[in-house]
């Protein structure tokens, strides 16, 4: 019986090829998009889930409450580790310190290899490896109890020594200062982990040598020092938080305006925390994953709507067959299942095509989402998902048309009295088209807003010069600092170089170190002051403008300081001239004089407001060399700079990058999102138009007689076109009215993430509306024109 149904379904498809094509392609594309989204979301949700004790691993972070807001840092003060071990002995605590941009030097007989590990060099203790477990190929966690011991991942060992099995005992120098001996090799972490530890030195090294910023001071916290905990069974989060509260009271001074507290977050939140971040290579917010899933769901709905509309419209031409089958003895349930089987057949064919499409597109996913490995299409979970999807789509898309078709009265059907009016459900079909176009239009509006915002950000005036600015990362050890002045002098002579300056970081950066401070010999202010350090040429290099006073003179330590407008605003100093000469001190240090005020520039990504900033000189913090180049001969100039670098800093890796690229990377996730929106908007419009094309084709067939009569009575081509156009133009208008407020609300929410944002102008909506109308019109123009040009004699010929 089923075979008979499949046979009929197959032959039906062959007979109505264009209908089959529209239906199958629309469904296939929708299914493919759904599959890909599923793979991505599932992958992102799988991070670190393979770890033993997954739900008992926690990470401690720090919350600081100021009078002007709350700040979070993923790090804890260094002494907190010992305090946790003493006060909460039943919990295992492990230390993980990360150093990004550290250089690894391997001296071999024939060559010296230098690497900068982009993914970071870590320091850890044995306890950490009991919490974040790895498979040990050589050695065990205990090797990290000794100072100057280092553990490498298998692929890193291969990279450094061309051989991992015999690398134990070899030596490595870190940052040209610390020596390490290889003591163990661990298995490479899988890609879906936020702990891809490749180079791990023993934490004891830091404690013993007091390097890498290690201090026993409770007052300073760096986000690079993190502590992870493994809870024993039956210990709850609430329980531990209470103990942490007691610990905070005991160790933190919590005086004045700062209340400090330590809080917990479980391992399962770490991959999704956009505020605190993680030690992996990306974070993805849960809301983003939700949006992606929602988009996948919407696309499937649209493909199903297509199917329903087309099948119902096609019901007219199937009516005769239905009538015959009923006369021959089929009852309604049997017909219903026959039609549903046909739907199933089409869905099956579509899904095969969809799997093929998904397989083709998989390698390109990397451009749209931050993935490092290629996802695999063929595994049990995907198969299960696909099957569920098939069943869902078959029922969603098939139930309504099958019900309609099986309900025909045989006599009426055989007399060909079934037309689109009696099939009914016109209002349902219209509603479905409205839904489709509403979704498309919402996506189009979203895309336009996202693109406009990203363009705005890219071309926004940051308040400083970012063109042709080369940044060289480096170190601040004594050797480097000694050679810096000579290096600067030499490269300043290169014809392509305009000006050179040393600094702690560039004017716009994601890292800002903050401190408490005081002005005018008054007590400490209630808000945080953020610091940047740069030499006397800093301002000229970045084109920062002074609105009062001037910069400071050349000095190795802090002498005078420069502040920005925002600081004055927060201090209620009305005129910039008034600020010159006032005194300022940071932390508990000495009082310095304000010698200049710069016009505000964007201190962070445009997601945040400008922070109050102080700029001063401090040679010990000059890890960045900032070089403003002439725009011609960039490549040549860079080569010369590199040659100079290698001459002065032979042991240090040359890392040059342009400032505008670095800034672009702030917005990497948003740029990817904008690309995703574009893709899905295009998909949505495509599917909607596919459906519209099918529907209009049907309308044309149904209205053949009417068009013929109208032409005989004197209608012109324009009138006929109007006849068909008004049907869908009205629907698109209604769809727009539904979509616009929804899209406006969501995009407003998204724009709220940015401190600097565009306003959603009416132009956006008009553009979206026009786009939908013109694309829809294009889709149906061929068919409607053909109908309008048809010879009335042909259409009025009776059977």
């Amino acid at each position, binding site marked *: 019986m089923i075979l008979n149904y499949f*046979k009929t379904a197959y032959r*039906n498809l062959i007979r109505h090829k264009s209908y089959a094509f529209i239906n199958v392609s629309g469904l296939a594309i929708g299914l493919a998009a759904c599959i890909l989204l599923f793979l991505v979301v599932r992958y992102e949700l799988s991070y670190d889930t393979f770890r033993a004790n997954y739900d008992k691993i926690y990470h401690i972070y720090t919350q600081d409450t100021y009078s002007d807001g709350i700040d979070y840092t993923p790090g804890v003060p260094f002494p907190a580790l010992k305090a946790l071990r003493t006060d909460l002995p039943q919990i295992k605590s492990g230390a993980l310190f990360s150093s990004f941009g550290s250089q690894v030097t391997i001296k071999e007989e024939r060559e010296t290899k230098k690497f900068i590990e982009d993914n970071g060099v870590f320091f850890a203790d044995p306890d950490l490896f009991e919490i974040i477990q790895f498979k040990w190929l050589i050695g065990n966690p205990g090797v990290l109890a000794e100072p100057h011991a280092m553990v490498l991942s298998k692929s890193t060992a291969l990279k450094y020594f061309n051989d991992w099995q015999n690398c134990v005992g070899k030596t490595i120098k870190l940052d040209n200062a610390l020596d390490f001996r290889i003591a163990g090799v661990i298995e490479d972490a899988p890609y879906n982990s936020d702990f891809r530890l490749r180079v791990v030195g023993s934490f004891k090294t830091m404690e013993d040598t007091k390097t890498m910023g290690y201090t026993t001071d409770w007052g300073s916290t760096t986000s690079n020092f993190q502590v992870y905990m493994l809870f024993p069974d039956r210990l709850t989060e609430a329980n531990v938080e209470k103990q942490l509260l007691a610990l905070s009271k005991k160790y933190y001074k919590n005086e004045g305006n700062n209340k400090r507290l330590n809080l917990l977050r479980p391992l399962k939140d770490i991959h999704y925390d956009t505020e605190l971040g993680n030690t992996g290579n990306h974070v993805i917010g849960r809301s983003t994953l939700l949006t992606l899933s929602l988009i996948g769901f919407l696309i499937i709905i649209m493909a199903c709507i297509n199917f329903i509309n087309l099948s119902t419209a096609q019901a007219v031409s199937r009516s005769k067959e239905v009538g015959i*089958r009923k*006369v*021959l003895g089929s*009852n309604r349930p049997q017909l219903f299942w026959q039609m549903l089987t046909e739907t199933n057949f089409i869905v099956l064919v579509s899904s095969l095509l969809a799997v093929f499409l998904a397989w083709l597109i998989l390698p390109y996913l990397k451009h749209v989402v931050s993935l490092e490995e290629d996802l695999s299409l063929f595994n049990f979970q995907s198969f299960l998902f696909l099957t569920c999807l098939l069943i869902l789509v078959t029922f969603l898309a098939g139930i309504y048309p099958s019900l309609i078709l099986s309900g025909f009265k045989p*006599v009426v059907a055989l007399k060909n009295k079934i037309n689109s009016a009696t099939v009914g459900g016109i209002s349902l079909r219209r509603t479905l088209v409205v839904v489709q176009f509403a979704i498309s239009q919402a996506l189009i509006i979203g895309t336009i807003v996202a693109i406009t915002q990203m363009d705005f950000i890219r071309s926004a005036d940051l308040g400083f010069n970012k063109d042709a600015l080369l940044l060289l990362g480096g170190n601040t050890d004594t050797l480097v600092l000694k050679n810096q002045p000579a290096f600067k002098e030499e490269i300043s002579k290169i014809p392509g170089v305009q000006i050179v300056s040393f600094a702690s970081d560039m004017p716009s950066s994601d890292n800002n170190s903050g401190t408490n401070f005081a002005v005018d010999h008054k007590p400490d202010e209630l808000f945080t002051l953020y610091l940047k350090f740069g030499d006397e040429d800093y301002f000229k290099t970045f084109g920062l403008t002074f609105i009062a006073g001037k910069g400071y003179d050349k000095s190795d330590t802090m002498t005078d300081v420069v502040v920005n407008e925002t600081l004055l605003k927060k201090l209620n100093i009305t005129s910039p001239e008034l600020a010159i000469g006032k005194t300022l001190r940071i932390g508990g240090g000495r009082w310095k004089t304000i010698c200049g005020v710069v016009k505000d520039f964007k201190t962070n990504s445009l997601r945040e407001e400008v922070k109050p900033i102080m700029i001063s000189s401090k040679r010990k913090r000059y890890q960045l060399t900032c070089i403003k180049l002439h725009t011609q001969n960039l490549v040549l100039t860079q080569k010369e700079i590199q040659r100079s670098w290698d001459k002065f800093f032979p042991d240090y890796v040359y890392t040059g990058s342009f400032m505008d690229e670095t800034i672009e990377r702030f917005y990497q996730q948003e740029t990817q999102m904008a690309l995703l929106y574009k893709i899905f908007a295009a998909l949505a419009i495509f599917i909607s138009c596919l459906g519209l094309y099918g529907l209009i084709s049907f309308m044309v067939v149904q209205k053949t007689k009417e068009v013929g009569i109208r032409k005989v009575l004197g209608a012109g081509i324009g009138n006929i076109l109007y006849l068909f156009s008004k049907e869908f133009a009205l629907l698109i208008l209604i769809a727009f009215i539904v979509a616009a407020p929804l899209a406006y609300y969501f995009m407003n929410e998204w724009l709220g993430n940015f401190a600097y944002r565009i306003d959603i102008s009416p132009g956006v909506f008009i553009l979206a509306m026009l786009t939908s109308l013109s694309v829809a019109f294009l889709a149906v123009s061929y068919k409607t024109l053909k109908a309008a040009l048809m010879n009335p004699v042909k259409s009025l010929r009776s059977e």
Partner: protein
Amino acid sequence: MIQLNNIFKWVNTGGNKTFLLRDINLSIREGEFVSIMGPSGSGKSTLLNVIGMLDNFDEGDYLFMEKNIKDLKEKHRSQVYKEHIGFVFQAYHLIDELTVFENIETPLLYRNMKSTERKAAVSDMLDRFNIVGKKDLFPEQLSGGQQQLVGIARALIDNPKLLLADEPTGNLNSKQGEEIMDLFSKINKENKVTIIQVTHSEKNASYGSRIINLLDGRIEKEG
């Protein structure tokens, strides 16, 4: 076998009742060959549809094989006409997507017959009508007469007691029409199948044993 008592059927057209069938009283015995005749719009096809239980009536009683079909539930009713009644149409109404073999087979699919049994029954029928060579062709590849032949084969495949034919030769030329009517005769005499046909042609009516004339939904005279 068939007993119609005071059958009325009407439709409501904007407030007024238009009668399709008026006070039909009719009795047909097993083995009869009846022709229903009358001008266009007299209700011939409607009457046939009512007899075949494809359409309802508004007043009166219909006893089929001594059972009042009003007492039967929908499921039983469809079972009754499935088992005992075969239909032949003027426009043949074959399923274009199926071959000749599959078209004839289709009623059996709804009888829950095993595949091998179905094959046997259809082969027999093809033999009987001498169309074995055409079993894999599609309806559009056959002539009008051949298509009607297939339609009749399909109607007879399950050995019905009653065959209803709505102008079976309407779309055929005289020679094809003759062949079909000869076939009807044969089935009626040899296989004892009761046949009720609607026809315009006097010649076709003469093949039957009885003629019923309809005018404006009423039985005019019986002959």
